């Protein structure tokens, strides 16, 4: 099997989907000749032509709104929003239309649309290029939101997202675009949406993360193993709808949960996960569910960015609190 970066896995998935299904089209800012600012769509325009891979005017509402129309016509548009921080002009289209056309038309129309967008901090980028606003999107019934963190999942879940009959927001963490590599099978395969995955089994404590945080959690689990603490790591993978079953099973098994996310703490996904654990698993819990998250502030600029990203020190302190409760 080939070893690929997350970025190359995205490119591979798009190419695979476009070969398999001529309804798949790719659109967005700079996705054509340039191949995207990260090169996620590199080579696609050359291979599939300007009709199926095209640059649009610089307008996010335009990109998403027209992609909704294309999807209702029967195409399978994969739209790129250049950075998650710039999805906001399109929010009206997502909230008012993409998410509810199925409902509003009583099932006559559906919107098989994928929106790919790079997200997350830690790459030392400019303001608005380091956002984690996933919870704003998971609050919208009708949208699926996924955030894979390994090349295998990146490809398999992107293929699944393209085949999904409903709109999917596909989040690609910038910090691990190139830094994380892994085995990626040739050709077509899918990894189901809506499922979280225990990526490391343990019995003492559960660490939950997605995107870069999943990799931090694995690193922490290694450190804890040296201290004799057996940590389980849950890669959330799909953020909406949540896989409550898998979340709960792990919480009930270890009795100790720590959720890591880059997004601000208040009303972040950590709050929802903690609520699931307390609603359904209270008697199995051995300690309060902890959250290690971004603070409730505007993401600091590059020089101080890392102060607002959960790191080893902060997670280890949380582990201490939970283990010694």
């Amino acid at each position, binding site marked *: 099997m080939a070893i690929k970066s997350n970025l190359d896995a995205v490119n591979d998935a798009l190419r695979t989907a476009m070969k398999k299904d001529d309804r798949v089209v790719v659109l967005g800012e700079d996705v054509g000749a340039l191949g995207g600012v990260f090169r996620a769509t590199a080579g696609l325009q050359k291979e599939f032509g300007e009709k199926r891979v095209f640059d649009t005017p*610089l307008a996010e509402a335009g990109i998403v709104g027209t992609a909704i129309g294309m999807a209702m016509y029967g195409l399978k548009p994969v739209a790129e929003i250049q950075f998650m921080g*710039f999805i906001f002009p399109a929010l009206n289209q997502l909230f008012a239309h993409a998410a509810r056309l199925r409902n509003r038309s009583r099932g006559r129309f559906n919107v098989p649309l994928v929106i790919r967008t790079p997200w997350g901090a830690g790459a030392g980028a400019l303001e*608005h290029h380091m956002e984690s606003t996933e919870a704003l999107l998971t609050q919208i019934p009708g949208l699926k939101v996924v955030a894979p963190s390994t090349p295998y999942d990146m490809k398999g879940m992107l293929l699944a997202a393209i085949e999904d009959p409903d709109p999917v927001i596909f989040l690609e963490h910038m910090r691990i675009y190139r830094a994380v590599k892994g085995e990626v099978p040739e050709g077509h395969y899918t990894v189901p949406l809506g499922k979280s995955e225990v990526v490391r089994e343990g019995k003492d404590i559960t660490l939950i993360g997605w995107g870069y945080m999943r990799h931090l959690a694995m690193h922490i689990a290694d450190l804890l193993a040296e201290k004799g603490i057996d940590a389980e790591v849950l890669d959330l993978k799909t953020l909406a709808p949540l896989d409550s079953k898998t979340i709960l099973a792990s919480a009930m098994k270890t009795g100790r949960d720590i959720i890591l996310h880059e997004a601000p703490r208040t009303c972040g996904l950590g709050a929802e996960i903690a609520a699931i654990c307390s609603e359904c698993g209270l008697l199995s819990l051995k300690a309060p569910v902890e959250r290690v998250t971004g603070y*409730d*502030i505007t993401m*600091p600029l*590059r020089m101080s960015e890392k102060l607002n990203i959960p790191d080893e*020190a902060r997670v280890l302190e949380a582990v201490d609190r939970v283990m010694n409760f």
Partner: protein
Amino acid sequence: MILGKYDPLKGEKFCMIDENGIAKEVASLPDAEKLKALYCDMVKIRAMDDKAFSLQRQGRLGTYGQLKGSEAVQVGAAHAMEKDDWLVPSYRENGLMHLRGVPLSSIYLYWAGNELGAKFPEGSKILPFSIPVGSQMLHAVGLGMAANIRGDKAAIVTCFGDGATSEGEFHEAMNFAGVFNSPTVFLCTNNQFAISFRSTKQTKTPTIAQKALSYGFEGIVVDGMDAVAMYQTVSEALAKARMGGGPTFIEAVTFRLCDHTTSDDASIYQDPKEVAMWQARDPVVRLKKYLTSANLWKQEDEEKLTTDVKKAIDEAVAVLGSANKPTPEDLFGFTYAVQPQLDWQLRDLKGVIERKSHGN
């Protein structure tokens, strides 16, 4: 009168000094002092911009978008603006912002990713850098609406690129400006690229300026590599705004003689022949040609200018090197005016930093 004389629908474009440094109507040029000042400031902002690029390459700044090719737009506008005029920039107006009073060191600090660089001098009517493309022009229009409500004689310049004119918010800004007669000068730097995307594909209209007509106000296409034309056009549009004449749209046609930002590689999509053609129209070289041929500029002047510019830049770089890093208070302190609910989080961060510094 320049506005109204050049019809964008007829493909007319205003220019005073052509690419060979030849003035069309010498009698209509500003005085020698102004011409020299325009030139000196172009040299200055080009040098500070080049320095920013090399600082980025040394890892001392983060991503930086150069302004090379647009010096005449920024210097022309800076000289046209009066003390009380407002500036609502994008991320590329580093030269204009500096000439309007933002210290060079602040600009370098900001792009280094230090919040302290975002603190512009108290009282300056300059809004912060705005990175979400196409969003800030509405604020300019609103400033003007407020001035109208208060009966003040204000004028606002808002800057953006060709790509920005595709965003919905741009069109809302144009419509509001017309409807409310906001004293706003829309200054569009058409550097012909939005990252890799050509301005000719951004819109089906042959010019961007002509869009102003459909919003009910004047639009003009100007040679954006001609500092004199830029200075005169923006001056006239601002004077009109202050007199209650409402908004104007200026499309300054230039060419991006650099990458989009330091993260970009324009060689993938720019045609070297076309780049060479536009390099030959260089705004800085062009005005120098005119000044030299008119006997207004000598080698000693150039030498003195080079020394002065270098000194100013060295001073700014020294400040960059010695500046404090933002403290946790700097990061928390401006989220709300009053923020008791964040106090525990601030304490948490300080505690983490403290414990890390003690190595446990």
